[in-house]
């Protein structure tokens, strides 16, 4: 990969990589670390990207995914592979549902999903991945992805019910 190619890849995908990491981790600082590592990996071992196996974007998000899970593991937080347990919403300062903006409430609801469910929602809703693409990225069956997405939506519906009127009126 030439430096021009790398530059182009960076410019084209940096926002997606960063946004994905941010939505998964809920931390701008971690997201930046992860995004950096993701691109440094591409720089060091560009041959790992095989165009025959998918788009560069999907590849980078796959790398990002590994980095995010790795981060969780190293943080020794809750087990990221636990399918069901809700995560405590990240500390959002003093803000309660009443004072947080809509975006922050959505963010907090997404953050409280179990990681695999959160991942399904983030990839589907924000990154525009199809179920097949998510399945291939996460190494899960399509049916599994579907059920994660379903459960995630159920939780989000519940969590966001109080704010939805404000959103749609």
């Amino acid at each position: 990969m030439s430096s021009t190619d790398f530059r182009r890849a960076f410019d084209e995908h940096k926002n997606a990589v960063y946004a994905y990491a941010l939505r998964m981790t809920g931390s701008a600082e971690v997201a930046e670390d992860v995004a950096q590592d993701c691109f440094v990996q591409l720089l060091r071992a560009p041959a790992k990207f095989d165009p025959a196996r998918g788009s560069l974007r999907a590849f980078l998000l796959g790398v990002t995914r590994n980095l995010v899970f790795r981060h969780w593991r190293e943080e020794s937080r809750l087990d990221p592979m636990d399918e069901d347990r809700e995560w405590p919403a990240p500390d959002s300062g003093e803000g309660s549902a009443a004072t947080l903006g809509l975006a922050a409430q959505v963010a907090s609801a997404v953050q409280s999903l179990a990681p695999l469910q959160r991942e399904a929602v983030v990839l589907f809703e924000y990154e525009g991945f199809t179920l097949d693409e998510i399945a291939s990225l996460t190494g899960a069956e399509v049916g599994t992805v579907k059920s994660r997405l379903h459960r995630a939506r159920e939780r989000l519906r519940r969590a966001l019910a109080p704010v939805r009127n404000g959103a749609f009126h």
Partner: protein
Amino acid sequence: MEFNDREPMTDEQLSTLLRKWDAGGAPRSLEARVFAERRPGFMQRHKWALIPAAVCGLAIAAGVGAWLLRPVPQLQGHVEVVTAPYLEHGSAVETLAAAGRAQGSQQGGTKDPGPTQAQPSQQQGRQQSGPRERVSIDFFSGPAKASPFDAKPVPEPFPQETRIDAPPPAGVYRVGNGVSSPGLLQKKEPEYSEEARIAKLSGTTLLQLVVSEDGTGRSFNVIRGVGLGLDEKAVAAVQAWRFKPGMKDGAAVPVLASIEVNFRLLENRGPWQLTRAIFNPPAGAVRPILTAAPYPADAGSTENESVRVSFEVDENGVPINFKGQTRGNPKLESEAIGILSGWRFQPGTRDGKPVTVPATFDFTHNNLEASSGAASSPGPIRVGGEIASSNVIDKVVPQYPREAKAARIQGVVSLAVRIGKDGHVTNATVISGDPILAQAALEAVRQWLYRPTLLNGSPVEVDTQVDVNFTLSK
């Protein structure tokens, strides 16, 4: 747009709502970090910390394991002393190795290994290699799918990769959320398999197990294997380990745990090293057994890279149909294929008949300065760090230097240590490490007192290596 509160949101409405969360674009600082400053991200910060210790071990060409527990995260300026790797040669030290293995409780200190020569060797034949450089025990329960870093620059997926994507067995807890980590009370060293020794295979087995309420392990599962019998050896050893069980609400509970067992052969290592060897025998077939694995003279490549080669072992035990899997470095790949083509196997069989079996091997090429001379030099005997460590009578813990703390300097300092016949440290020199930290490590280690090592009843000088790990909490 109006709707009833009692009516659940449709998927579309939920999508619209979710889109209110705009993550924004990547910050400008990201560009500087990727292109210019190269400040290490968390991955690099964590991943490479232990490499200096491994590399300096090579220079002396020998190694038996030391092990370490995860550092205690709450401590400020935590200093962890890790003794490390040498590989001993010949029968004289064989007894020491046996004594080291017979050592009992690590934490409780209830069993004293006693004079090292008192334990007769139970190993027949060659016991020239201490099996590991290091066993790290790591209680997590994360995704065990190989991440891009697990195998350094080797592409994935590896055949036979097992992934944990399932919930733990019923009634088994995971650490966290009020469930405490199990602790290691007593361990047993894994042995090296003969095949792995022939092939000079070094690698890491990742095991998953359930630590029962009674402190024993069960439900073993090799998540990521090294191959050539080492995974079986790892399981066999860990089966004998005893743990302090994980606790929840004051009661012992079964907890899912993962353990990494690192196998490192450091003896006579050339630049090429086999790091993983996996066969994919067809259903019902037994895999081939490696019988000869010569490493030809190095071609002098300067790259440090890993390559993966797939091939088949035919009915005569000859490797054929090589295919490089790396797409990265064709030159190293063809060198690796050159090495493999000289290897021979006892063919795989099905129903007693030889069959062709596919295999995938990983090699790493490290451009090391030739260091094999050290192995044959006479003089004091070399002793594995762990064995030496078990003989420390008085261990002065290094002070964390204030300036290093202020500058948040961390890392491993490796020292080459000579222990005199009287057990005092007669010489200690820095092999690697940050100079400020090294000074502190030297000052402490020079004060250590060891139980003298006896050879045929007479005290002898001993060379060993001590690794001191300086880590700061976040």
